[in-house]
């Protein structure tokens, strides 16, 4: 029975982690750009939920608004933090997104509040479900289901649609894709929009565990996405998903096995294990699209 509990924990946590990682990699894979403001896309969804919570709309409608706002914020990140510095040094781009992240967080601090604000949750999140003798929040199962659906949709998009094929092509050879007529701006905006969509969905599931939103709420998911991406292989979409589940496995295992006094150092242990993985495989577990260029 412990095993079933363990499995459900890993799968539900891994589902969230995988979606977080995917949202980050889709921008990195095509543009070679690390979006430090990614965590803030999650924050934006959370604050949107808070701001519309008094409207009396059904939860699903509010959730749709939140996800929409994340998509908008994602596209805004492109225009503010990436396009102006597109052809400058890699450092410049990293820092503009970091600066934009600070900007958004401080905007939330300034214009809303530094204190936690409540986020409306659907009634179903608080219910528990019994499976095979194990009692678990319904939210966990919903997370797994949502992830399966989103990953499936995403996979279909990448393989079966022209846009997806074009995006994969742009990830290896951006200029060549343009020479075939693929509009650069469309690809980039699509990548950011999808990133925002994934961030928005994950936000609802992630914030659903705590019920409140603060300006710094995006930091933990950002970190998770970072680590999952690095161990999975920086530019591989499958790698990001795999990295997410692997990270969830490590985190959950540590949760189950660490003695009480060491539990608060769990992140340090996770990081040490990640370092070991990187010592063994610096490029990550799965190689990304071949391109011969320095990533």
């Amino acid at each position, binding site marked *: 029975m412990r095993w079933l509990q363990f499995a459900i924990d890993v799968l539900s946590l891994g589902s969230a982690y995988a979606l977080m990682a995917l949202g980050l990699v889709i921008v990195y894979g095509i543009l070679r750009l690390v979006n430090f403001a990614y965590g803030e896309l999650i924050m934006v969804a959370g604050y949107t939920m808070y701001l519309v919570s008094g409207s009396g709309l059904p939860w699903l409608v509010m959730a749709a608004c939140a996800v929409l706002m994340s998509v908008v914020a994602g596209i805004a990140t492109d225009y503010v933090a990436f396009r102006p510095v597109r052809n400058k040094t890699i450092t410049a781009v990293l820092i503009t997104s970091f600066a934009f992240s600070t900007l958004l967080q401080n905007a939330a601090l300034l214009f809303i509040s530094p204190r936690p604000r409540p986020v409306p949750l659907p009634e179903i999140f608080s219910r528990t479900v019994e499976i095979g003798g194990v009692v678990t929040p319904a939210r966990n199962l919903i997370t797994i289901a949502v992830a399966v659906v989103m990953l499936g949709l995403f996979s279909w998009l990448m393989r079966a649609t022209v846009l997806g094929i074009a995006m994969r092509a742009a990830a290896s050879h951006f200029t060549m894709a343009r020479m075939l007529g693929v509009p650069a701006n469309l690809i980039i905006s699509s990548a950011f929009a999808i990133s925002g969509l994934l961030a928005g969905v994950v936000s609802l599931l992630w914030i659903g565990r705590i019920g409140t939103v603060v300006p710094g709420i995006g930091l933990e998911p950002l970190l998770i996405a970072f680590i999952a991406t690095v161990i999975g292989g920086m530019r591989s979409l499958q790698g990001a998903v795999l990295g997410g589940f692997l990270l969830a496995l490590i985190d959950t295992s540590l949760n189950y096995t660490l003695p009480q006094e060491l539990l608060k150092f769990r992140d340090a242990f996770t990081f040490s294990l990640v370092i070991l993985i990187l010592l063994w495989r610096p490029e990550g577990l799965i190689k990304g699209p071949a391109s011969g260029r320095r*990533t």
Partner: protein
Amino acid sequence: MARNLATLVILGALIAALAIGAEATGVRLFERIAITLCISLVLVLGLQVFMGNSGILSFAHIGFMGVGAYTSAVLTIPAQMKGMALPDLYPFLSGVQLSPYLGILAGGLVAAAVAAAVVYPLMRLSDAASVITSFALLVVLHNVMTNWSSVTNGPRTLFGLPKATTLPLAAAVAVAALAVALAFKESRTGLLLRASRDDEIAAAALGAHIPRLRWRAFVVSALLAGIGGGLWGHFITSFSPNAFYLKETFLILAMLVIGGPNTVTGAVAGAFVVTAAYEGLRAVEGAINRAGIFREQVVGLTELTLAVAMILVLVLRPGGLFPTREIGHHLFPARRAR
């Protein structure tokens, strides 16, 4: 060589002028700002040693500042105070009480040792992976500092450090850091590192083992960060782990980026410019709040403005104020070969 000496002299004189000027005015506020600026110089120069030579962004720097600060704290808090400040401290440490100068040095050494032990795997990663892993390292260092209560008093404020950082001391250390940064840049390690940024294969042919070179740069950088942390600890005399996290990282990065990460002059210039802007904006924010212009307290305006400024600098002048040449090179340009 002469030009580097010129840079050292010019920038060193600038720091000295700052110190003397601030002390001469006798205004406590100016003295405080000058000391903070000198400490920032130590930190930014440390970051420049790694970022300027390897070309890789590191977010972990301020974490090592924290390591230095806490190390010095544990070694220098007077024995009587330790009982109150760190009640759960390990017995072999509770009796130790060193002079603050030794404490600061020890802080630097411990930070360097931790860096040496932990970061080698990161130096083998590709640029982007290295950056985001350094970010994770910052979070982990913060996590350890927040939870290792017996040594750090956990998330609570640790107090009791002797106030030993005077303006002359801070300025002297800043000038020393300046010398270290310039020396490293022109050392064999520094030159090879910078060469490897442009052409990895050619540099390898010259015998450059890039991860090892990066590692050396990082360790030196952590040493300076630790010393900076110790200096700061003995200035402010009490702090908590949140003093070594994102906001400070952002400020240090702003200084280096706006000044120019590739040059030591840039690091110094950036520290001066951003400190001036920061103090100015803080004063404005304070004035707004006192005047009660808005219903609620204005918070975060300073960071917001700096963030916008950083983005503008990167768009308009991506290399910073001093993108490629040190000030010594500007004033004494190399003669063109005939």
